[in-house]
């Protein structure tokens, strides 16, 4: 019996014991599980009738560094096209990075061969956004969950495999009888549970969750979020939680990294990021999220960013956000700000992060930044 099995069998009863083993206690220094160092993923463009490389590339991820500690949830947020999903896939080597390093328990995955990677993947799994297209419509749910167990030889004999499948279904809150059913017989929330069960079949340590609740109805989202939190407690899992919904990410994450145009612009503890963001992009992003409370909404000030995200093909020079930033000064266009610790593990890449408190005043003084995008003709 492995540690994992014991945890699974004893469930919540051994939660404390589990915590001591796998989840770092406050006094212990947290152990890094995944270290991402200057990760780059470029997609080369091809042109002409021969489809030759043009030498240009879309820099989807361009120098991203962060560490994910054992047992924590790191949230990764950003708007569409900022490279958050590509980052997740590059960590799992589903898309080989153009440059940089990804270390998992100290082992460099970028250097690993495809065979080595296949063995390593057992420890790191992906939960997909769309529970409709990520499940094979012709396989029963039981077969789908059993497949990785057989491939990796985690159980021997059909009875043991079947028992394990039922155990996993129960673990994600589905009836064990559902093993015989096919994906079309399930609702979106149930399919997402099946996807989670399939990922857990390999007894992973690390899960990349790519927008796991975005496709679900609001009343179902909370069910899946609670399930993921419970599984983490119970199995000592580490999550990279990728999503564009800031409220959901803040709820589930210990720390949050904010991406803009292929770079991480800010990384901090979830509560700190919300109460005192140090980057103008984070600040405007937070102010743009509607809060379901009319009283709060009436008194809130919104910083409305002008324009769209620039193309990752030709990102702006200097700070990538300077074209939309109300605080931008000439230095921002000329020099790229370093991603530095502004104090107690709160990282930000902005030249003016000390003056961030003045952002609201600055935004207000500029026409169109606060209240109303354009004057009405």
């Amino acid at each position, binding site marked *: 019996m492995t540690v994992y099995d014991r945890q699974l069998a004893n469930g919540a009863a051994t939660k404390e014991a589990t915590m001591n083993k796998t989840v770092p206690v406050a006094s212990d220094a947290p152990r890094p599980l995944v270290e991402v160092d200057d990760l780059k993923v470029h997609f080369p463009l091809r042109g002409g009738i021969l489809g030759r490389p043009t030498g240009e590339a879309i820099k989807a991820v361009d120098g991203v560094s962060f560490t994910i500690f054992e047992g924590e949830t790191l949230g990764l947020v950003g708007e569409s096209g900022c490279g958050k999903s590509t980052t997740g896939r590059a960590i799992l080597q589903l898309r080989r990075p153009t440059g940089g390093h990804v270390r998992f328990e100290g082992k460099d995955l970028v250097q690993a061969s495809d065979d080595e990677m296949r063995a390593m993947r057992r420890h790191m799994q992906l939960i997909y956004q769309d529970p409709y297209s990520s499940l094979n419509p012709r396989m029963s749910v039981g077969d789908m969950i059993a497949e990785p167990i057989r491939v990796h030889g985690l159980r021997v004999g059909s009875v043991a495999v079947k028992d394990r499948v039922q155990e996993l279904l129960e673990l994600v809150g589905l009836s064990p009888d559902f093993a015989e059913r096919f994906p079309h017989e399930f609702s979106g*929330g149930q399919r997402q549970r099946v996807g989670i069960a399939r990922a857990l079949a390999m007894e992973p340590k690390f899960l990349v969750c790519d927008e796991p609740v975005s496709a679900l109805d609001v*009343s179902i*989202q909370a069910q899946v979020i609670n399930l993921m939190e419970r599984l983490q407690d119970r199995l000592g899992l580490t999550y990279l939680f990728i999503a564009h919904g800031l409220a959901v990410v803040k*709820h589930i994450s210990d720390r949050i990294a904010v991406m803009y145009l292929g770079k991480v612009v800010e990384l901090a503890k979830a509560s700190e990021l*919300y109460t005192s963001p140090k980057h103008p992009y984070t600040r405007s992003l937070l102010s743009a999220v509607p809060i*379901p*409370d009319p009283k709060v909404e009436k008194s809130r000030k919104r910083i409305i960013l002008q324009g769209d995200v620039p193309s990752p093909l030709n990102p702006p020079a200097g700070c990538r956000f300077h074209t939309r930033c109300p605080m931008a000064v000439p230095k921002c266009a000329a020099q790229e700000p370093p991603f530095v610790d502004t104090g107690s593990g709160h990282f930000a890449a902005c030249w003016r992060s000390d003056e961030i408190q003045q952002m609201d005043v600055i935004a207000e003084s500029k026409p169109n930044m606060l209240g109303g*995008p*354009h004057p009405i003709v």
Partner: protein
Amino acid sequence: MTNLLEVRNLTVEFRLEKGVVRAVDDVSFTLKRGETLGIVGESGSGKSVTSLAVMRLIPNPPGRIAGGEIIFDGKNLLDATEKEMRRIRGKRIAMIFQDPMSSLNPVLTIGRQITESLKLHMDMGGRAAELRATELLDLVGIPSAKKRLKEFPHEFSGGMRQRVMIAMALACNPELLIADEPTTALDVTIQAQILELIGQLQKELGTAVIMITHDLGVVAGMADRLLVMYAGRVVEDAPTEPLFADPRMPYTMGLLNSIPRLDERKGAELVPIPGLPPDLTRLGKECPFHPRCRFAVKGVCDVTVPPLRQVAEEHKAACLFNVDELKAADANRSAALMDLVP
């Protein structure tokens, strides 16, 4: 203020292989001139079908408006001929859809698509229509409007396309604008731009707006009044503030407890609504929410359709119980739970 739109007992049915689905079941509401009404609900709750019915755009077959009245400015739209409807659609009632890419024609320029309704409804000539189209693009904040009129939809970003859709909808100064999930496909910073734009245009032009969404946050800051829909029925109808502060229908309460808030304190656990929305083909004489409701009483909620009744001033809810009864039930339950704990 007079009522611009009055929907009475609207019922819409779809004939499917597995039976007849009542997508909208006995829905009534009113909308005053210049007012913003938010319709909130999950997928399948009938919010979009309601708005399509107002435009008389329910595909028939399989759909059919089975009953009720839609009084728009004193006239029942269900009695209008198709020709009369065509004069109303786009001119007096305009609509913005969720997906701006599939609602624009990819092979026509933006200019052609905006001027079409101007020529048709406003009897404008080519030159005048083009001038007005430029003005409209300016109005919705699209830079170098004149040049962009000659461009095609694929040359615009998602947010810009949605602005084009809004410009088209506003072209003929409609009295009613129906926005069906106008920002769901957009990023938050772009969503903020579009919502701000709709709000501002409404203030300037005095257009009444029906905002359909699944996101309670979107309507919290915009709507004057809210309808909460569940399984084709209106389950709560109230001004925005009381609805959030003092919801009277267990579904609304559950919804508010199950969404994470950006300003929540750490550690607050989400309280999900258990189970799934009901299968509309199997819905009988029962409260559609009773299988998921923690207050449901056997022999009462599963045999009665709770009427949408007045529970406070301007506040209606479709629950057989009063809020104090629900609260008492909650208190009893936690007391009972406390007894179990040694």
